[in-house]
């Protein structure tokens, strides 16, 4: 028996197939898929909200605090987070991360850390030490911390990347320091990532560095997304503006994070927290709509007016 397929049915079916193929995109608009950005060097997608470990994961061997941080990390992965950023400068944070990663069965980790030593001959030793502390075979991203000895370190990191020992390399700054030098490095060196301070109050990077990152195809990680917590002090007891919902924002944490990751050059922001409730708010910014350019300007005006 032949099925009575007519041209109209065929076209309807084709349209339905096309719509189904676009379903994830539609789903993302409604807020159930994490917002991702592509790493320009490879086209790999990364969730736009990551996690920093400065101060928060430096808990030494305290069993109670280790258990608490395990819950934080578990929730981060459960909510779709991948990028975890640390540094040897953060005390025991790398060792703590290694301990906690060993406890968690399900995780999709993009491991990022830094080389932090003046001795440019110690790059390999530093990388291997961090690998041992984290318990990872290789890092996804290795960055030169605060440009410390960057010339020698970058040369070695480049060689390690060529050998397949690292996936991406980059450099970092924070607090808006040494932007001129960072600009020179971004212009001259083959970087995959830069990490810098960018938030709604510290927007110096958007003048030259963020456009340059787009031009050169460099992924950008934003540190200090809450200005070390000072942004929350600024908005304390203030309600969210009524129009925040239009920009897909439901908390002040979401307000600050979505401002950052809605910049077209931005790949990922790395807020840090010790509180589960704060982690939930941070990870909520990974979903839903992002503010457009006009809404971003409105957000700046609103914060400046507080």
């Amino acid at each position, binding site marked *: 028996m032949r099925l009575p397929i007519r041209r109209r049915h065929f076209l309807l079916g084709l349209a339905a197939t096309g719509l189904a193929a676009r379903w994830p995109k539609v789903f993302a608009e409604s807020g159930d898929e994490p917002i991702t950005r592509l790493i320009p060097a490879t086209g790999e997608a990364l969730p736009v909200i990551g996690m920093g470990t*400065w*101060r*928060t994961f*430096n*808990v*030494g*061997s*305290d069993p*109670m*605090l280790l258990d608490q941080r395990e819950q934080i990390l578990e929730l981060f992965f459960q909510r779709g987070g991948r990028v975890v950023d640390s540094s040897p400068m*953060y*005390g*025991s944070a790398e*060792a703590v991360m290694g301990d906690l990663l060993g406890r968690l069965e399900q995780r999709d980790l993009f491991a990022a850390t830094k080389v932090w030593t003046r001795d440019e001959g110690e790059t390999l030793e530093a990388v291997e030490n961090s690998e041992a502390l984290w318990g990872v075979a290789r890092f996804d991203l290795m960055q030169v911390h605060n440009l410390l000895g960057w010339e020698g370190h970058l040369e070695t990191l480049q060689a390690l990347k060529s050998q397949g020992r690292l996936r991406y390399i980059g450099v970092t700054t924070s607090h808006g320091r040494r932007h001129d030098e960072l600009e020179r490095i971004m212009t001259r060196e083959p970087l995959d990532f830069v990490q810098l301070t960018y938030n709604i109050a510290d927007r110096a990077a958007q003048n030259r560095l963020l456009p340059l990152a787009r031009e050169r195809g460099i992924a950008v990680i934003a540190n200090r997304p809450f200005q070390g917590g000072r942004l929350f002090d600024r908005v304390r007891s203030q309600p969210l503006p009524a129009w925040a919902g239009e920009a897909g924002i439901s908390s002040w944490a979401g307000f600050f994070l979505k401002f950052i990751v809605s910049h077209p050059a931005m790949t990922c922001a790395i807020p840090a927290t*010790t509180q589960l409730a704060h982690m939930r708010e941070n990870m909520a910014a990974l979903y839903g709509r992002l503010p457009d350019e006009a809404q971003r300007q409105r957000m700046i005006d609103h914060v400046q007016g507080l």
Partner: protein
Amino acid sequence: MFTPEVYLRLFERANAWPGRGLWMVVALLAAVPVLLFQPLSGLRRLVPIVMAAGWGLTAAVFMLQFYAPINWPIGPLAWVFALEALLLALLALRPPPGGIRPVVLICWVAVLLALSWMTVYETGTWWAIALPGMTPDMTAVSTAVLLLAWPRRARWALLIIPLVWFIFSVLVHWTLKLWWPMVVPAGGLAMVLIAWAWPDRPSQESGVSERVY
């Protein structure tokens, strides 16, 4: 750096070490006033030895075991504490201190107790009490106070390490915005300056120990 919560937890963990370690420290602390009031100079010579034990214990337990993993300068500073312990042990070779008036001793103990409670006040738990002989600020403060019983000539060199520690500790507390616990190193800093300027009693200047109560 680390959070204030992580820092304050160090006190609770140190007091839980190694189960009954806290009582050992309390016993050492109680021994100091008892020894100071002994008529035999040989027993009073033990006071700097007890103080040295406190510095050693602080370095080995609180600093190296708990604090150093979260704050890298603490590792080297623990060895500086060990050096102070050695210097205090050498102080036992000098003539012991003279007697101390009971009222002075009571005042000292009251001040030290008040300082010990700053971390309790901040955390809300008794387990966070900062004891001399276990926690670095209180060990250094109590040492600076006790050194007043020795002649200036003997005491000034022993105040250098407490001074360095207090400056470091004030900066740490300032960064963490722990204002109440910061009273301890800030008070210690003042105590060191007082101890440097504190004049000798005539009997101390002549190097002869004397009971004055």
